[in-house]
């Protein structure tokens, strides 16, 4: 996977994760272009599209669009389920997640993503294992608060 973007129906970017080196300018350009393209698509359309020499896989959950760019050889359907598993992880951690959770706890959304995907590849698919790692970190956080 080359990058993952989360954006709202209004086109506001909520999370961006880049697995290839790109300049800030290029990132902004890509984001603008893709947000526009994806938002223009109708609900019944297919979740995949060709874009430059990449494949875009996207899915909408409530007010949020999850959008991944994968390479020519990558599997579209499994990417769709990467998105779904990520949503499940967020949901489990936040308890029925909504857009606001991701806005106000963006750092958690990033930490969970890093446990699940690293360098653009799936690292750990077990929901239990990912959440265990995050919960351990949260525990450390509590401890250090108490300590201070």
């Amino acid at each position, binding site marked *: 996977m080359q990058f993952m973007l989360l954006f709202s129906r209004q086109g506001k970017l909520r999370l961006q994760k880049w697995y290839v080196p790109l300049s800030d300018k290029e990132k902004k350009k890509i984001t603008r272009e893709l947000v526009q393209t994806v938002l223009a698509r109708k609900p019944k*359309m297919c979740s995949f599209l060709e874009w430059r020499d990449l494949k875009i896989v996207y899915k909408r959950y409530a007010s949020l669009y999850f959008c991944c760019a994968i390479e020519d050889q990558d599997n579209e359907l499994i990417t769709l389920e990467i998105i779904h598993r990520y949503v499940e992880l967020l949901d489990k951690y936040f308890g029925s997640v909504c857009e606001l959770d991701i806005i106000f706890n963006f750092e958690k959304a990033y930490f969970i993503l890093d446990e699940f995907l690293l360098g653009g590849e799936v690292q750990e698919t077990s929901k239990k294992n990912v959440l265990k790692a995050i919960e351990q970190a949260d525990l450390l956080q509590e401890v250090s608060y108490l300590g201070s």
Partner: protein
Amino acid sequence: MQPHVPCPLSTGKSKEAEIKRINKELANIRSKFKGDKALDGYSKKKYVCKLLFIFLLGHDIDFGHMEAVNLLSSNKYTEKQIGYLFISVLVNSNSELIRLINNAIKNDLASRNPTFMCLALHCIANVGSREMGEAFAADIPRILVAGDSMDSVKQSAALCLLRLYKASPDLVPMGEWTARVVHLLNDQHMGVVTAAVSLITCLCKKNPDDFKTCISLAVSRLSRIVSSASTDLQDYTYYFVPAPWLSVKLLRLLQCYPPPEDAAVKGRLVECLETVLNKAQEPPKSKKVQHSNAKNAILFETISLIIHYDSEPNLLVRACNQLGQFLQHRETNLRYLALESMCTLASSEFSHEAVKTHIDTVINALKTERDVSVRQRAADLLYAMCDRSNAKQIVSEMLRYLETADYAIREEIVLKVAILAEKYAVDYSWYVDTILNLIRIAGDYVSEEVWYRVLQIVTNRDDVQGYAAKTVFEALQAPACHENMVKVGGYILGEFGNLIAGDPRSSPPVQFSLLHSKFHLCSVATRALLLSTYIKFINLFPETKATIQGVLRAGSQLRNADVELQQRAVEYLTLSSVASTDVLATVLEEMPPFPERESSILAKLKRKKGPGAASALDDSRRDTSNNDINGGVEPTPSTVSTPSPSADLLGLRAAPPPAAPPVPVGGNLLVDVFSDGPTAQPSLGPTPEEAFLSPGPEDIGPPIPEADDLLNKFVCKNSGVLFENQLLQIGVKSEFRQNLGRMYLFYGNKTSVQFQSFSPTVVHPGDLQTHLAVQTKRVAAQVDGGAQVQQVLNIECLRDFLTPPLLSVRFRYGGTAQSLTLKLPVTINKFFQPTEMAAQDFFQRWKQLSLPLQEAQKIFKANHPMDAEVTKAKLLGFGSALLDNVDPNPENFVGAGIIQTKALQVGCLLRLEPNAQAQMYRLTLRTSKEPVSRHLCELLAQQF
């Protein structure tokens, strides 16, 4: 909710208000960081987190990096974590900072605290810069295979290493750890396997031989997963599908290799593939879309592997049937993927016929799918499944679709139709009809390449010329016809109008007035083309001479504001009144057949489609084999007058040669015809591209006919006389280092008269500019008789390139404008850096470059005496190192080098095998970039 996060969204009513608030906040944070009081860890974390939030809202952040780096060394986890996140999101290549960051990472990696270690590994994987690679690439393999590393650390280490390897493979040392990495495929922890497979796959792609042992391990792992019950794998089962991500990754890994050689392994694998195909037929275990997606993800990856092997007819046909079911599935996603996957199946000789049986479904999809991206896939599939048996049906369906097609894909459909019509034309009248239909239906999307091509084919095939003339004549009678139709019509009638002149309904005056009725509505380029048609008419039909001269003489032509039109009118008028019938007939002779070359249409489609290029090539491969299977479908008979068999019209099978040397023409062609100048042309024989598209005043003429030969002289040397005629001598001297070069051009005036307005310029045709930068210094506008001026060129190679820049020299000599275009002797091999290597390394690299496209080979007759010393000198001049004791046959030459460009380096290996008895050579080039291999091979083959 975190207390420290600002909440600009709730108040930010307008963009301005938000920016104002944020600027205020940034000023506040800046003052805190700069304040006298040292901030405690908690406050530092709070403000760094705010900065991050502001950045993620889309604002630029230019401070706070130092504070984030400080957080990295905090012993409080939460502070460290925010520090790492900031660094990951906002990397700065500030080297001072990177050193500090690396220091903190180093400490965490050594901490033996798995949570800290993972944080550090995540950071390296997220940043993935070369500096980090230099600092850690050697440590991470150790962490990965260490017996005491925790599972989670191993997982992160594997993917962290993958990221570093992708960014800078040279930094990751191969060694003893690689064998142990392969055995991670056997690890008990599914998460470790999942992470490790990605790393192994990437390593296999680069060094397939070193990792061969992974095949049997991957097969047995896959087999265990595929045969496990849906609950066996506990948390690794996803909606009743056991380990879908791992399965897909394993199937991907196997696609790095040909089918397993070991019969037992192969048998086990085929069993797995069959199991997956069987499961697809079972009723679903859940109605959830996640279940079917996960299951089908494995199925599609299985089909990809089957297609990759392309050796099991039974599996290929089963795959095709499975996809056929999906073609009518209610899920749009599945229909899309089935169409896409079938495209590759269509190129296999085993499944091509099976794919063809779905033609009606696919045509229906083209007509009824509501999503344009699905329709596009359908069009792609029709293109891929097309062969001689169904070409007429497919082309007519695509033409019908074109009438309502989305604007975004019209041009591509036009190209596809044009290619298919040409490739499968049994009779060329069908081809002509199809292209004219294209122009009629979608004239705006018919690019130059398409209509040039129809002209080339009509010119080359005399059996279709009469039909073409008749058809365009009829098409032009439509009250509103597209300008491209006028261009094609004008050209064809100018060449072959005589073939229909016998019919009183299309007598010469009728033809002329029909064309001329369109004249005033057309653009300058088309009008210029029509003027050329008119002068050709004067030759073909003397009875039209008076009328046409009248048109040329009209003030609107002779005093036309457009230089090109005016010049053509003046020159054609003079030509028609001064020249004798014989001269006229010679000058305006019918066009000679065009040299065959790769269809420019196909080239254009490849450019447009990028990755599709490969499929076009596959296509040709399949087509050859297909013809063989069918007992050789009779290729269209080629006529005596056309030099090439029609089967090769697209030039698909031959290595496409560089663009054929165009015939010089241009604004001043008549000056050349009537002067005794050295560049005088015997006949007005323009290629349609050149002649009829009037070059603007800034454009330059095409290179002189000898340009290619002159260029070839300089492939292996850097100095000498580039060009010489009675007036002018051009000498060249150049030196190249890495991707840079400097060239001195010496212009000598051989006459005793001063040259005026002397202006040599360098022109980059096409998009060459993005590949090669040439900076020229101005020279004096006057060159005295007998004098010499020097021009310095600085050259930088940005990317690999195929065509050389052009050098255009213009000046006035005794009142006449002279112009001359040459090819600048800058070829890609000038940026060669020789590389010495031992035989073993050479062969290893040679094997690594074993993809069919990476190799280019030519077998050719010796044009010069076969002298080993001369050959050596030429190869060294070409730029590669000569390697001794590599080839077992001492007669052969082996060389290696690296082409240096700014963007990338291309490693090149070459082997030249002389056969003195047959007076032949075989030349083989292997490089990591396909066009480079081909181009180098062509350049070098011309030297011997």
